């Protein structure tokens, strides 16, 4: 049993944290947000330079063989700085699908492009009716000679408007919500028949709604089994949740630091407000939530690569429950402790509040995961719900 970072992990953490500290102040972020695509292309190039875009891929594909713990380290640093770039969409989500589902030829072609920062990807999984259910897919893919024709619409595609290529989940067989019959299709963003409408998200990032009208995909661009991709999607979703947990912990850490700083400087009634016991206890509640979340993010990272699906899903869901509830608790406390200034766009703490609130809604909120955990029999025992 050990919770230490290895030498390489420590160096990675140092590097990413330093980069964030030097180039991602709240003011920098504001500037990056006004760039054409809503994030900084220059920072994207820095990530490539540091090797972060190649982090999780195998060494034979030009990656660094990083696992969930390495991703956790990077996402935590990103969460601290509240980054805008599509790292989660490109590297964690789409990268995960390629890593676990793609053929050697597809990996050999795409991974170097991602690693060098030349290609950004997105994963279109959500649909108007699907809410958090990844298998609820109505978008259809029909055989067409040696290729496929896609029809349907996808919602809330994270960074879908910045993506060069989009991986789309579509049904090749079976009824809506059936595990079998879901495939993954790699589509060029400018493919004929694909239209996308980009918009900002509540936390200042970007997403897009996508419509597919008779979009043709060559067989070479089908990722894995066209009727059996759901297990891959489900594993990637679990890894993604672990990554989101780490990102949230980074944000929580910063919210705690910003709030403590405020308690130690703001004066009312002739005293630092941090000297008041009511506020101290609120600050301690935040600290407890932060440490519990940190523990669960570590747990999720370690368990995200567990091969026993039930064990993995239970652990990941438990972590997301903790993170979702802490996002509310820490977010609300941090605003309350700041008072009026916390409600302004001018102050950073509100932006963290918005971001962690949005993290709760990605890949299942606390309630969704509590239900899944309960249905799987909870964390102890094995009474599955029939």
């Amino acid at each position, binding site marked *: *049993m*050990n*919770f*230490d*970072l290895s030498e390489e*992990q420590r160096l990675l953490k140092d590097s990413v944290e330093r980069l964030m500290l030097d180039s991602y102040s709240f003011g920098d972020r504001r500037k990056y947000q006004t760039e054409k695509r809503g994030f900084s292309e220059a920072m994207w190039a820095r990530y490539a330079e540091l090797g972060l875009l190649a982090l999780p891929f195998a060494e034979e594909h030009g990656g660094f063989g990083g696992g969930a*713990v390495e991703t956790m380290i990077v996402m935590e640093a990103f969460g601290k700085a509240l980054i805008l770039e599509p790292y989660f969409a490109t590297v964690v989500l789409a990268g995960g699908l390629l890593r676990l589902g793609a053929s050697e030829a597809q990996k050999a072609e795409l991974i170097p492009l991602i690693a060098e920062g030349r290609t950004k990807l997105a994963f279109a999984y959500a649909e108007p009716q699907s809410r958090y259910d990844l298998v609820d897919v109505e978008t259809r893919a029909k055989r067409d000679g040696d290729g496929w024709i896609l029809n349907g619409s996808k919602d809330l595609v994270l960074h879908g408007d910045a993506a060069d290529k989009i991986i789309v989940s579509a049904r090749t067989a079976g009824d809506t919500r059936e595990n079998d019959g879901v495939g993954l299709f790699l589509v060029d963003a400018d493919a004929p028949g694909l239209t996308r409408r980009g918009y900002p998200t509540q936390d200042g990032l970007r997403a897009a709604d996508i419509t597919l009208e008779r979009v043709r995909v060559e067989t070479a661009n089908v990722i894995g089994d066209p009727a059996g991709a759901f297990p891959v999607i489900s594993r990637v979703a679990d890894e993604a949740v672990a990554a989101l947990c780490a990102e949230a912990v980074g944000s929580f850490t910063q919210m705690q630091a910003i709030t*403590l700083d405020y*308690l*130690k400087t703001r004066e009312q009634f002739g005293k630092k407000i*941090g*000297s008041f*016991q009511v506020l*101290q*206890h609120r*600050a*301690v*509640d935040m*600290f*407890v939530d932060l*440490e*519990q*979340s*940190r*523990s*669960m993010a*570590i*747990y999720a*990272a*370690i*368990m995200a690569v567990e091969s026993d699906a039930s064990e993995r899903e239970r652990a990941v869901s*438990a972590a997301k*429950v*903790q993170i979702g509830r802490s996002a509310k608790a820490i977010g609300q406390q941090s605003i309350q402790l700041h008072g009026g200034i916390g409600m302004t766009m001018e102050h950073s703490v509100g932006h963290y509040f918005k971001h962690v609130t949005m993290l709760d809604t990605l890949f299942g909120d606390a309630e969704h995961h*509590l*239900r899944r*955990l*309960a*249905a799987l*029999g*909870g*964390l*102890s*025992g094995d*009474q599955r*719900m*029939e």
Partner: protein
Amino acid sequence: MDLAFTKEERAFREEVRQFLRDNVLPEIRRKLAEGRKLAKDEIAAGARILNKRGVPTWPKEYGGAGWTLVQQYIFEEEVRAFPAQLTFGMGESLVGPVIYTFGSEVQKKYYLPRIANAEDWWCQGFSEPGAGSDLASLKTRAVRNGDRYVVDGQKIWTSGAQYADWIFCLVRTDPDVKKQQGISFLLIDLKTPGVTVRPIRLIDGDHVVNEVFFDSVRVPIENLVGEENKGWGYAKYLLGNERFGDAGVGISKERIRLAKELAERACVRGARLIDQTAFREKVAAVEVQLKALEITQLRVVASASKQQKGTQDPASSILKLRGSEVEQASAELLMDAAGPYALRDLSQEEREGRNEPPVGAYGAARSAPTYFYSRAASIYSGSSEIQKNIIAKAILGL
């Protein structure tokens, strides 16, 4: 980073399991598995067995096993899972470490082996009627008179005083200085004339705590631990140890297991309670909290060996606070699972030594007292509010 135990840790675990199989009496194991209480001599015999290879939590030179925190953790887990009785109480966990850290050579030689062999039972004389959360305002006085102290005053909430041979007390030896600076740490034989122990029954119907009165009790000066008026520092050290071990993960796990077991038998409109979504979600929510606590404890345990002497991982500060909340949440689950069967009060039968009821009903009947008593967890050894004050100051720097 790895949650799995190393090869050496797994080998140690195997050794512990073998040791328990070879040494723990089957009737003790059965009694514990059924959630019954052990008698005093059973606990003492059990302690002598578990301490065969040294007291698990003590260093080697004082009759301990000299285990690392990770080994202690594994030992504790295995003992709970077996189940065997966990500890011999306050002698081992509280006063022992104070004696080997601050006591004289004579004290170490006399008291430590007697604790390790379960010859002496100890209780803790800290709280007083007027000194609860504000412990340092305690008034029990010890006045030096030749080679004795004369002790007058009263202690309260003294767990296990009815069984104990000795009490370790915080007493005021200098009333004229700042309250923390006039306190000494004194070991008092409960058989000394002038000591009276009176029971307090708590809302769970059980007799755990007592009042202890001191009326001109003469205590030899060699029973002073460390220096006179330095007792507050020793008490802080002791409470630090207490908080560290107080996450209660094992207790909460056991309660959740029991609640699930009860819910498998309980019926709601013809279906098992365990199959009801609302109940399962309630259990899962507590399990999430417990897992977060357990991982936090593991983080603390794993980092302890690397900490500089006298410092702790900041996360350790939340173990007592959070631990008591999770213990309480798991006790609530027990109540929920038991439903109407929680109503029956078996404490009188228990006191009279009868224990005929079947295990299931027995478990349900224990749930209400467990729930009632669980409220104490956020009050004793530094209430949750005191814990928050400490964390705000020491960790958050407020």
